[in-house]
């Protein structure tokens, strides 16, 4: 895969030179996105995701640094960049009194489509987002999920090489969310590079080839999910719910190969191991030998939530 997006030392300061920084206060941010990958920017609300995506989509001018997309500088050749990207904003950006088709065709014309190509592409997009049957209905009459789908469809009208999706699943029902996640995967399967911002760890984990974790306007880690987890150490936790914890049980559990730490309190035993699933049978055997009835067991493997917690000292949703 070749590099499609290069971001170097990017900073955005509001009302320079004295204003606050939205991005890059402690030093400009840098990362790359490879052609054909889904890259997620994961971070809590206010972390700087939308500001970053706004600079990448030419809406905001960086205070310093450089953004190259498809070989073109965002600041020096914005029109060329705009032809390569499709932007799906976080909030719905549609004309509510127009139909889905009219919205698609209007924005399609803004991308230079016309005539048969415009009609054909609108049909394709309507089919892709599953709204062919409702194409002539006004957006006003759509459900929240349907509006979200049209919002995405508008960004796809000109067959962009890359699409920016800024928190597209905020405030929608689970079924619509699932539909949107499947849509993103489908787009990627068709070869589209995707930049996806979210504060939902599960979405980033499900979709992304690589993730950039952003907090307080700084990129604090970039990599595949495996690489990020490795950064904080690959430790699993076995959590046993038991009626009681007899004396000596924790010491016996510590003898299992790969177990690093055992703590027990209030009917819950936490066993930290390098490979939790490997240690699990032996742990159950010891519990049984000690006559401890087992109410439940959970294997908690490291995830992005844990990574974020470890890197920032707070949970993603704090």
């Amino acid at each position, binding site marked *: 895969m070749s590099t499609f997006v290069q971001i170097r030392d990017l900073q955005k300061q509001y009302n320079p030179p004295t204003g606050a920084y939205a991005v890059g206060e402690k030093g400009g941010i840098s990362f790359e996105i490879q052609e054909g990958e889904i890259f997620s920017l994961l971070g809590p609300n206010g972390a700087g995701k939308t500001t970053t995506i706004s600079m990448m989509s030419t*809406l905001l001018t960086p205070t310093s640094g450089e953004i190259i997309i498809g070989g073109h500088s965002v600041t020096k050749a914005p029109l060329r960049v*705009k032809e390569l*990207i499709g*932007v799906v904003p976080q909030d719905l950006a549609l004309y509510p009194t127009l139909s889905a088709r009219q919205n698609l065709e209007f*924005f399609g014309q803004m991308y230079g489509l016309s005539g048969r190509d415009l009609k054909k592409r609108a049909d394709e997009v309507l089919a892709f987002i599953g709204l062919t049957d409702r194409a002539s209905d006004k957006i006003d009459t759509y459900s929240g999920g349907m509006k979200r789908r049209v919002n995405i469809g508008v960004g796809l009208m000109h067959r962009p090489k890359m699409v920016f999706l800024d928190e597209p699943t905020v405030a929608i029902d689970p079924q619509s969310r699932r539909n949107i996640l499947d849509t993103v995967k489908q787009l990627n399967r068709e070869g589209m590079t995707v930049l996806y911002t979210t504060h939902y760890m599960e979405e980033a984990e499900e979709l992304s080839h690589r993730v950039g974790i952003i907090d307080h306007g700084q990129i604090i880690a970039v990599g595949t999910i495996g690489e990020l987890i490795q950064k904080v150490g690959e430790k699993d936790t076995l959590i046993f719910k038991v009626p009681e914890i007899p004396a000596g049980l924790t010491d016996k559990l510590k003898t299992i190969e790969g177990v690093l730490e055992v703590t027990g309190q209030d009917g819950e035993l936490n066993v930290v191991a390098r490979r939790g699933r490997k240690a699990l049978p032996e742990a159950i055997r010891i519990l049984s030998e000690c006559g401890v009835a087992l109410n439940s067991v959970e294997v908690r493997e490291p995830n992005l939530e844990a990574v974020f917690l470890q890197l920032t000292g707070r949970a993603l949703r704090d």
Partner: protein
Amino acid sequence: MLRKILVIAWNGIYRTYTDRTAVMLMFLVPIALSTIIGLAFGSGSSDIELESPRLLVINQDEGAALPDGTPVQQGQQYVDILVSHPPQELADLIAAESSTDIEAARQQVEDGDARAVLIIPPDFSSKVLTGEGQIELYYNPAAEIGATILISVVEQITASLNIGQAAQDVLVGENGYFIEQGLANDKVEVIGEAASAALTPIFSGQQVSQVRLNSVNVKGDVQEFDSLRYFAPSMAILFMTFAMAGGTRSILEERRNGTLARLMTTPTPRWVYMLGRLLGTYGAGVLQMAILLLITPLIAVMLGREASVWGNNYIGIALITLAVVSAATGLGLLLSAFSKTPEQADNLSSAVLIVLAILGGTFVPVDGVPVLDMIKNASLNYWGVQGYNDLANNNAPLGDVLPNIGILFLMAAVFFMIALWNFNKRLDI
């Protein structure tokens, strides 16, 4: 880029004309209001205080002699009543003075320094004796009320001279509309009585033939007045200005609902967007005026009035329309440019547009009304209504309304420049 400009313009026009509320405000309300006001004036009951209109009297009458040799000076009777010994009621109502230079007097009327000139020709007395007496009242129809008062006064005096004759030969006809139908009816009656009383002793026992009053406006045409000719354009312009403010306000709405930002992520420069939106707003305004131009004659016919509400100078009408919509679009953009939210633009527009409408004589003509007579020039409504009225009432040639057209386009240019300068500063996404 031209294609994109047209697409954005059409997007604006389409959204405007598919909005039922907007369509109602653009068409139904102005039509209904001008119809209602027209009907209300037809049954009339209002009263407006006016400053005394100035009348210049030029008596060139050389006199004549009756068959028994008695000399008569028919023209002098007008001078006596109007200038030398006017009844108090008449003196309170008009300011008449003698003059001798016809051209200078006419110029004063055209310049607005006088409302009318009464010209009594040299052979007036002798013509009166043969039943062909004619006098001429030269007035400025733009000064509706002042001129109408004078027409009515002269009409009353002339009627007094025409003993036993009805006033149907007096050509002022409906020009007396405001007076007779509502503005100063009581005063007219008093004047008529005073004039008759003053003239009766002079003509008592004499057989005086009919005198014909030619009412001539500054364009040299006999004027016919219809209230719809005033209120149709004034209401159309008023509601068009609101529609234009609404159209330009959509830029603020687009900024808030995110479609502006989305458009800016497409390969569409900001100037293309602005031009497209303005063209759309302008096109919607021209279309609105065009539809009203077509519908109001039908309303006039239904009310039993003349169909030619706007006159027959189609090029003049078209240019006035383009100019007044330009000025309104510019003003709308200016109001939006100085507002942060659509709601703020709404409030600002309502206040400014109503004030300008009042100043411009949208609801009541302001010619001759103290203070308003001066500041009306700041209102695009005034220049638009006056232009349409000139075309409708006088069949004025294009040259006569060119100043109105020029001033309106100038207003538009100034509004656009200030608005775009300010918008460009603060149209951040």
